[in-house]
């Protein structure tokens, strides 16, 4: 299981990776810290020319250079990537990013509680166990 984690906050990136590996020990988590390296990875450009496409993208929205919504739009426009599941994992509430919520397979607001935060791992693991993601109401 290969997961592309797009997260510019190092602490959140650490926690998210931890949560995913705890929920699915075999998961490979590739972390990039902005939308630009994320697109390079998805386009398989240097330095990711040999990389394989991810099975899932865990995407933060508020990035430093290229925001997550731009990455999501590109993913949905490209035939090679349009079917890759995307989980939005953002500090902002769902109704603040209506387009992102509509284009993503799941929208999860980052909680301030440790246990709640670690549940993101279960969301990702759920995908691999069932082959699908239940969209949040």
């Amino acid at each position, binding site marked *: 299981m290969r997961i592309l984690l797009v997260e510019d*906050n190092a*602490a*959140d990136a650490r*926690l998210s990776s931890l949560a995913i590996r705890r929920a699915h020990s075999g998961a490979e988590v590739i972390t990039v810290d902005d939308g630009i390296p994320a697109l390079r990875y998805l386009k398989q450009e240097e330095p990711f020319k040999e990389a394989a496409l991810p099975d899932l993208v865990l995407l933060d929205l*508020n990035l430093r250079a290229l925001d997550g919504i731009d990455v999501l739009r590109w993913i949905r426009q490209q035939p090679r990537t349009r079917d890759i599941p995307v989980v939005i994992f953002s*500090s*902002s*509430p769902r*109704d*603040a990013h*209506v387009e992102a919520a509509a284009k993503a397979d799941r929208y999860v607001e*980052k909680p*301030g*509680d*440790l246990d709640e*935060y670690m549940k993101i791992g279960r969301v990702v693991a759920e995908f691999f166990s069932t082959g699908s993601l239940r969209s949040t109401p």
Partner: protein
Amino acid sequence: MELVVHPVPVRRSRSPRRSRLDFALAGTLCLFTLANTARAAEDTKDKEPNVLLLNSYHAGYRWTDSIVQGVQNGLASPTRDLSLDIEYLDARRQPASSHVFAELLREKFSREAPRIIIASDDAAVQFLIQNRSTLFSNTPVVFCGVNEYHGTSSYVQPYRSWMTGVLEKISWDETVDLAMRLHPDTRNLVAIGDPTMGAIADRAGLRFPYTHTSSIRAAELSASEIQQRLAGLPDNTVVLLGAFTQDRLHRLFTIRQSAAFVAGAALSPVYTVTKAAVGFGPVGGKVADGYKQGLSAAKMALRIMDGTSPADIPIDGSGNNEFLFDYKALQKWNIPARSLPPASIVVDRPKHFYTIHPVWIWSGLGFGAVQSVIIFLLLAEVRKRRQAEIEIKGHAAALAQSNYMLEQFAFVTAHDFQEPIRNVAIFTQLLKRRTAGQLDEEANEALGFVANGSNRLFLMVRGLLAWVRSIDTDQGSVPSADAGAVLAQVLDKHWPAIDSGHVTVDASRMPHIPMHATHLRQVLDQLIANALQHARVDDLRITISAENAVDACTLVVQDNGVGVPSVIAERVFGVFKKGDLESGERIGMGLAICRRILTFYGGRIWIESTETNGCRVVFTVPNRPDPVESAETASGREHANPLG
């Protein structure tokens, strides 16, 4: 005649009515006597002597009328009370009646001769000379309008001791010279009028030897013959019009009639030396002015009455003639005004609209001026108001900008703060778990405080962010929510708590509320949640009711819980303010968000609550909401700055 009044004796024995009648009669007779006495006294008052104006022609003859007017104005004086008698010899129409007229004058003035006589034109002068011995033999005479071509200087000279006056100068030479200059192609000059016009034509022929000259004696032809002669004149002819008063058939012509007749019959320009003829067809000429003649004669008469001898007053031969032209005739013969002699007078110019309607023009100008002043004042007032409006808008814009900046600051701060604060909170929790059992009690407690504080800070920041975002209007253009449907969604969300807590919810029929559904949902969700969390009674009943009036919708969410103390009923709508000290980790933003949302729609929210009758939250939304962005009502202004 004097009337002697004998007073009527009053008899005591008469009746009262009879006595009053006698008194009235006596009074009337006295008044009559007094009036006659005053008149007699008036008759014997000293008066200026009378003046006789003897005209050769008749009243209505324009030349004579102008002389009469000149004499009248010349004799008018505030210090003199002259009596002016005007008589007409009518020599043109009644040439053989002079002896009868003499008898008439002798009879009329038998009692008192005039003090002085003014005689106009030759006939009157000759009449006075002829009848001098028997009529007005001692009365000085001032003449005017006498034509020098009658040899005035010779036939008046013997009578200079009692006669002087003003000669009428006939300016035919100047008029002919002018006509030849204005019509340089002239080859034929024709003079029409009385026999003296032959001499005029002859004189012109001497000065213009290459021009054929001739004359027409009007009295020797009929009017139709005159007309044929004039119509048959060759091209390049100029006609000189002298005075004629009748044709061979004794058809009479006034000056105006003769001028119009000749100018109408001739196919050539007509020139005249008679002022009265200008304006009736002739082009014009150097004309004599009867008014000036009469005026000068009157002045001479006054000098004689003051004691100057007529022999000492020289005969005035200057004439005072002037060039006078008719505008219509100038246009007809294409004579430009610039070619006329200096100081020429042009009559019958087209009147300017101003000349015809000066009152209307001045009235219009005055009205326009008043209107302009009013408009100017109004414009100045409008300008002042617009400037005031601009200033107000500027202040409002500045206020809105300030609020917007504050909101942006709050948003950015809250948004950017929440990540690091969340990190602190979570990793503190993680650290606490990792160090469980490894720290002493004090260190453990300290770490617990850090974890709780950071967690609370995270919640506050997120609550603040929710407050700032609460009136995001990216919800569509028409704010209208089915309150019934929204309430159903909210109750579905809280169903687990409602079901497990054995809570009764009563909801009346809900109207459409002029709000976005998302905002209405937030408000109802918060109020229902508050009721579920803070009522703290076993048999909680929540009642939701609505009333839709003309101006506003009113919704009420009421519970039968512990209520909110009235002293903090308003305070609980503040940011980070709570009404329940036992609310645990709740940060107190819920009601602040509700108020912000309702203020956005121009509505209100308040609590009617006591500690014994539960909590009653009422909120209203105007039926025509006027969204107010980034501004607070007076009731919420204390909470406008989220940073306190």
